[in-house]
Each structure stands twice: as C-alpha cells, then as structure tokens.
C-alpha cells in the first residue's frame, strides 16, 4: 500500500484531471492506474472526482422556465417584426 502524501500520490492527484480528460499518453495513464491499484486513498479521490465531473456534465441546462421562455419568444417575434417593417 502506498502512503498518502508520498511523491507518487502528489503526482497522481496533480494529474487526475488530465487523466480523466483523456489528455495523457497511454504510459502516463498506466502509471496512474498502477498507483491507484495499490493506493486506496488515491483511487477513492479519482472515483469521487469522476462522480463530481459526472454530476456537472449530467446537468440538464436546456429548459428555461416557461414564463422566461414566453418572454424570450415574444422578444424575438417583436424584433423580427420590427426589422421586417
């Protein structure tokens, strides 16, 4: 088991985002994966960070509240009508 706070842990934690974003070379990924296989603490951080990113990316941002949407549609219609006239 690797001690948390060892240089390996610091390097892994510093590179997690690049790892999760698919920005690392295969050999660099293997270093992280090998480390996490023997370091429960870093593996937990990676899992928790993946969960955090998943939560952010799973946000459903597309819907405006109906009142706001109606106002926005009315603004568009008014602008286009004004420009046509």
């Amino acid at each position, binding site marked *: 088991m690797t001690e948390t706070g060892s240089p390996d842990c610091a390097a892994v934690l510093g590179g997690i985002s690049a790892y999760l974003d698919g920005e690392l070379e295969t050999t660099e990924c293997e270093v992280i994966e090998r480390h996490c296989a023997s370091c429960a603490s870093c593996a937990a951080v990676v899992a928790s*960070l*993946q969960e955090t990113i998943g939560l952010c990316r799973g946000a459903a*941002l597309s819907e405006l509240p109906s009142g706001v949407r109606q106002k926005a549609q009315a603004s568009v219609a008014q602008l*286009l009508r004004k420009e046509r006239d």
Partner: protein
Amino acid sequence: MNGDTAYNLGVSVTNGSSVHPSRSDAARAEYADLVRKAAVGDEAAMERLLMRAQEVAYRFSLLVCGHPEDAEDVMQDALLNTYRHVSQIKDPEAFRTWLYQTVRNACLMKRRRRVDEPATLTSIEQGGVDGDGDPMAVDVPDAGVRPADQQLIDSWVGERLRRALAKLSPGYRVIVVLREMEGLSTREVATITGFSEANVKQRLHRARMMLKESLEDL
C-alpha cells in the same frame, strides 16, 4: 492521447470525458450552421439562434454571476447583439465563443452600472496578470440568489451541486460552468475568459477538487 482507455478505475463519468471534445465540436458546428442560414435570410434559423442567445444569457446570469435580477437585461443585450452580429460575421465557427464573450461582458457591465456596486469591482478594461503571468479574468461579486431562482437552478443541477457551485469564487465557477456544463472546449473557455489554455486546465482541476470536497461535506 489515451482517449477511451483512461476510464477503467471504476466509476464512469456521465457523458464521458472522452466524448466531451466531440460534444463541443458538434455544438459549435450547430451554431455555425444556424448562423450561415440566418445570414442569408432563413428566418427560422434566425429565431432559433436568437432563442439560443437568450438561453445562454439567462443561464450565465444565474449560474455564473448569481444575479438573476440582471438576466432580463442581459438576455435583451444578447438578443440585439446577436441579431446585429449575424449579418457581419466572417467566421460562423467562432460565433459560439463570441456569444459567450458577449454575454459575459454584458453581465459584467450590468454590475458596473449598478449604483450600489462595490467599489472594489474590477472593470473589464483593467488588465493585470495573475500569479502565473496570465491575463486576469474579471470576477463579479457574488450575491444571494432568491429562493425561486434556487429552485430553478436545483431543477437544472440539483441542490447539492448548486450549493457546492455557490461556494466557488466566480473566477473558478465560470470555468466549471463553461467547460463542464455548457460543454465548451478548453480553447473556447480560454478565449472567453482571457486565461491561457494551460491556466484554464489548471483552474478547472482546482475547481473540480474544490467542488468534490464541497460535495463530500454536503
């Protein structure tokens, strides 16, 4: 690059990190297609584009600036600026970045015009560099979000994430919202915020770690 093979540590990421760049490309291409059509008189494309511009403005006002009371004005700015810009745009692929920059600036200008604005608010024109030598992005002050708006944000991102996001400073929150929620690329976020790409990545990493810790505490 490693791509898909980077995710074998257990928990999968919703909308996976590996598909994120293509998500960004697809959205940019969709905007560009609407811009091209709108520029040659396709009214339906123009309507969709103008609605998109207002949606971006509304979300940015609430999620990044935390000032829903400004949203209506920022939406109106986005509407008019988009309409004027479409006929002049030379590079439709750059439209999406332009839109977010315009909305961000509108939010900041709106804050500056308020009579009760804190004197410490940095103006958009003021430059300066941060500790890494990168141009400083301008932060806007936080404000309390009304319960009704909290409910709306909760319906988008959930209560836990809304509360965790509120704990981030605006300079970090803008990176998370643009990159993770709006699905913009690192390069686009760098253009919008004025940070270097390296700084966007560094800030995104710090912001993710802070969010993670906040979420664990909630």
